[in-house]
């Protein structure tokens, strides 16, 4: 017995984490899967009902809008966070005066929840209260910035606020990545006559692969879960134009008494996430094991 324990101690230590995640993640996914096949309304019911919720889901305009929005949001959110993050990290890496202050400024939004900053953002983006009014008051009479209340553009304001919250963290990741690179590489490039742009673009950024990986994981996770952001800024409006899956899921389950339908939407989310994330995670892990 003791011998067995000694031999398997690492696995035994791993067991609580694996056990907890098995139940709290995978167990719950299975539960959700089951519920998605029932006709649960206001509360979960356990009689099987079939694939009805899925047909209903994909017939729902709101869900289709939510999926579209998620794709738009995730793509823009990823691109902007990473681009801004990289730019800020590179610039901060140039022996900047007051680096500490600037870094803190870029990083602090990560510390605040959107319940806190949502109101401020709502003001800033609102045409009759915020930036637009500010510029008009300053004499720029034709200045318009009404994305928040524009059905077509509102999703982009969510990107603006989302990027605001997360780009600093990506900056931190890249800055850390840059700092952990041997400076001999930079010296070699300098002697080779590469200018700053070339040094970063051709040499350092290609070396940041692991950072891209971490950023991807962090950002996709934020984007899939983005709920507070939407509730604080638009509550899915104007109309239903900024609905996102997490909001849809919450609303259908809790405010619209369609627990079954919500479970179906959750399953679609899980599957989409799995389809995107697992191959990526897997290929990255394999690369790592090979090298």
């Amino acid at each position, binding site marked *: 017995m003791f011998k067995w324990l000694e031999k398997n101690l690492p696995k035994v230590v791993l067991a609580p984490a694996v056990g907890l995640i098995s139940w709290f993640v995978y167990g719950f996914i299975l539960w959700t899967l089951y519920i998605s096949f029932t006709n649960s309304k206001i509360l979960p019911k356990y009689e099987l009902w079939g694939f009805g919720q899925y047909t209903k889901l994909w017939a729902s305009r709101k869900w289709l809008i939510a999926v579209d929005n998620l794709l738009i949001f995730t793509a823009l959110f990823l691109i902007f966070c990473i681009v801004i993050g990289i730019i800020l990290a590179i610039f901060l890496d140039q022996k900047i005066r007051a680096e500490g202050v600037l870094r803190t400024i870029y990083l602090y939004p990560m510390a605040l929840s959107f319940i806190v900053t949502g109101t401020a953002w709502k003001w800033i983006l609102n045409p009759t209260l915020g930036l637009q009014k500010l510029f008009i008051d300053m004499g720029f009479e034709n200045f318009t910035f009404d994305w928040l209340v524009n059905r077509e553009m509102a999703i982009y304001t969510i990107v603006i606020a989302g990027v605001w919250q997360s780009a600093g963290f990506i900056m931190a990741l890249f800055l850390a990545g840059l700092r952990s690179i041997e400076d001999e590489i930079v010296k070699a490039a300098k002697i080779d006559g590469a200018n700053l742009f070339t040094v970063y673009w051709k040499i350092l950024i290609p070396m940041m692969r692991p950072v891209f990986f971490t950023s991807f994981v962090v950002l996709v996770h934020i984007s899939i879960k983005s709920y507070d952001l939407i509730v604080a800024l638009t509550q899915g409006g104007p109309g*239903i134009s900024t609905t996102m899956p997490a909001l849809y899921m919450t609303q259908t389950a809790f405010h619209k008494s*369609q627990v079954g339908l919500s479970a179906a939407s959750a399953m679609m989310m899980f599957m989409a996430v799995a389809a995107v994330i697992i191959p990526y995670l897997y290929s990255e892990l394999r690369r790592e094991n090979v090298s």
Partner: protein
Amino acid sequence: MKKILIALIVFALAPNFSLAGPKIEVLHWWTSGGEAAALKVLKDDFAANGGEWMDMPVTGGGGDAANVTLKARIVSGDPPSASQIKGPTIQEYDQEGVVAPYNIDAVAQAEGWDNLLDPMIAAVHKCQNNSGPYCAAPVNIHRIDWLWANKSVFDSNGISVPTTWDELNAAAEKLKAAGIIPFAHGGQAWQDATVFEAVALGIGGNNYYKNCYVKLDENCLRSDTTVKVFDQMRKLQSYTDEGSPGRDWNVATGMVIEGKAGFQIMGDWAKGEFTAAGKTPGVDYYCASTPSNNGYLYNVDSFIFYKTNDPDKQAGQKLLAKLMMGKNFQKVFNLYKGSIPARLDVPMDEFDSCAKTSNADIKTAGAKGGLVPSFAHGMAQGNTMKAALQDVITEHFNSSMSSKDAANALADSVLANM
């Protein structure tokens, strides 16, 4: 390290001590201003009767956040003693078996609630398809179809309170020409729906409203009348300002109070904002019903009482139900809240003119068949159908969707969720 960990766990596990006696845990979202003050009256009453009140406020989204908490509590097998639930949703919870055995029915029978409430209102609070024992208690009756207007704005533009939708449109055009935002509106789904149901009742009439939004008749929903209702919605939308989408309702009310905007269509809780700003009805502002043929959209706030095996909590439920329907609470609470008492025998002399109008109108409406439940506030339909209607209404209001398409979309959405 380990010792700290253990200490922390023990610390987190430390139980909350409490004494025996009537006990109640109430889930609600009345946390501010008048509502909270009103609720305090109830809490104090409850304490005076030896009870222990465990407050459980969760605000946000007009009860949306509270809904999450409620369901989590029910699923966890430990529902609160009472929560703010109203209309057909009461029946839905009953059908899930979380309300029986109707602990408060005995109180209702002893107090004679059947005689104290309008039969229609009473039925809402009876479980087993509105005809069984009481399982919920009403606290008030809100009227939804109110028009709130800034008197000085109306006066200085030569506008009197409109009695038809055409008059209202004309007034709005006048204000627009004068450079004032005619219609103060918050573009959130529930607010869009609030306006919509007032328009539907006014333009379509009482029977149209009942057919379409109570009975959910498909032909009615696809009818030309619905198209006309959507046309009027489109007009109203053109009277809003560009900052409207996403705006909170009370911000919109503030615009009327400050004279930035002409009028707002909102339930009678808007009065609280006027009162808080020190304004008097008839002097500073108008409160009038939106144009309709003796219509009255009602919305009753009530508390549902869940199944519990704890005798202390059962005692608490009974005590709370009794106090909630008490004459004093019904009066004080509604003075604060802007609504009128659900209980019929509460004297109205302390209420203001708006509440008095409401109290008189509800009787006329009842007699003339215009007393209809609000669907936007979950009185006519359960949450699923409410959402199905709301989604189409808000999408139409915030896009360039044609009225005809909207009417069909409305019918389709209803059918899809039948």
